[in-house]
């Protein structure tokens, strides 16, 4: 599905050069969720932007469905941490419909509208179709952004700490919404986070998902991930 081979990326700051990513290789299959877990500034977002085609790697290759990623495409949609990723001059519904229109999904406005409403319903945003983004709470904005991304029916969702600025309760309900939508759509997800607990709730790739938070298995996994992170 998406395959990275020996990806390297560095940034220059003045005369100094910082190697942010070195020799990264992995692949994600269709329908999988992969969490990229790590402390702030370790290059998670950089890696995600490379996968989305927003930046190009210095060396190595990134391929999606066999073809090289060279620019952003609607087939892999990036969902950002920023609450202001919705276009403020469009209503929630228009924000979801607009990308469909740009990409010529469906012939009629009516069909596009129905399609958009279906996805807004999926993320539980009924009743806010005609609100402008500034009228929504942070969590609702992220739900709308998720609906906009899913409505395009991409092969892969690239999520850059999308729930990072939310309070614990809202975050939990959005994680549930995300997993439910993933169940319904079967989209592959690469999920960047610095929160071990969040990674464990969402990921199914790294290790088997321990569902019950109190279990000893859960604690063991948490400890293990924590040590790995601290050693870094």
């Amino acid at each position, binding site marked *: 599905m998406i395959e990275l081979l020996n990806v390297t990326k560095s940034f220059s700051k003045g005369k100094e050069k910082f190697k942010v990513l070195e020799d990264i290789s992995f692949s994600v299959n269709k329908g999988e969720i992969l969490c990229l877990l790590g402390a702030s500034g370790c290059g998670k977002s950089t890696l995600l932007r490379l996968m989305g085609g927003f930046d190009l790697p210095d060396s190595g290759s990134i391929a999606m469905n066999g073809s090289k990623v060279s620019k952003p495409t609607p087939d892999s949609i990036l969902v*950002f941490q920023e609450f202001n*990723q919705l276009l403020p001059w469009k209503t929630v519904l228009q924000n979801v419909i607009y990308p469909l229109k*740009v990409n010529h999904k469906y012939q009629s406005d009516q069909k596009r509208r129905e399609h958009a409403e279906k996805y807004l319903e999926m993320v539980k945003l009924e009743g806010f179709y005609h609100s402008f983004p500034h009228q929504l709470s942070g969590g609702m904005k992220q739900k709308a952004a998720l609906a906009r991304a899913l409505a395009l029916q991409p092969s892969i969702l690239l999520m850059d700490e999308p729930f990072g600025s939310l309070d614990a309760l809202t975050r939990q309900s959005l994680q549930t919404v995300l997993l439910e939508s993933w169940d319904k759509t079967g989209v592959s997800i690469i999920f960047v986070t610095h929160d071990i607990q969040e990674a464990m709730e969402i990921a199914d790739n790294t290790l088997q998902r321990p569902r019950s938070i109190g279990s000893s298995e859960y604690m063991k996994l948490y400890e293990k991930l924590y040590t790995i992170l601290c050693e870094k």
Partner: protein
Amino acid sequence: MMCIMKIKKFIWIFILLILWQITALSGKVSPLIFPSLGMILKAMVHAIIQGELLSQTLFSIAIIIEGLFIGAILAFVLAIVSRMSESLNSLVETLITLAHPLPGIALLPIIILWLGTGRASIVFIIVHSVLWPLLLNLITGFRATPKVYSDVGRNIGLNRLVLLKEIHIPASLPYLISGFKIAWARAWRALISAEMVFGAVGGKGGLGWYIFKQRVFMDTAGMFAALVVIMLIGILVEEVLFERVEVLTIRRWGMTEK
């Protein structure tokens, strides 16, 4: 809040008018150079009934709209050109650096040499006064567009030109509106001064010429009547037109304070 602000403004205007009237009626100043409110009102009514004040105002407004329109189109074209490449951006910035500090009125003698004293010259000077502040604001607005908007635009597959139209222009609307406010004020200033210098073209010279002419006749009240008209138009455009546009766009979309 907004409403209280407005009422306060009206109260201040009222107080200033009373002060004016007291000064005029105190007998310490000659009504020939400091007319009372009644005289100004009479002069205004007279000039309106007679038709000249209105026709001169319409003449001025037509020129200003023409100048604003041409200036706005040029500003958009140059702003888009400046986004096309690094060297073109540098060219546009150089043009702004050179031309922006130049008051329109300083160009008058040259413009008279080049274009004569007709309507075209006045339009030219208005375009000059409008273009640079508008362009500067547009470019600033484009630059201030949050990166996440253009990332989203690129992600859903917009090409550069559509990105500019669909993302950068709406995102820089607050800058665009304030650019138009500055441009509008500058255009008025340039217009009035240019009209005073050029005089009438075929009997019509606009408000600037009207004020100048009343001075020749020592019609002080008439001069003030024209000034009042200019102020009223200014208030109408600022408080009604721009206000309306802001309420319908950037305030509705939460893109500005208040």
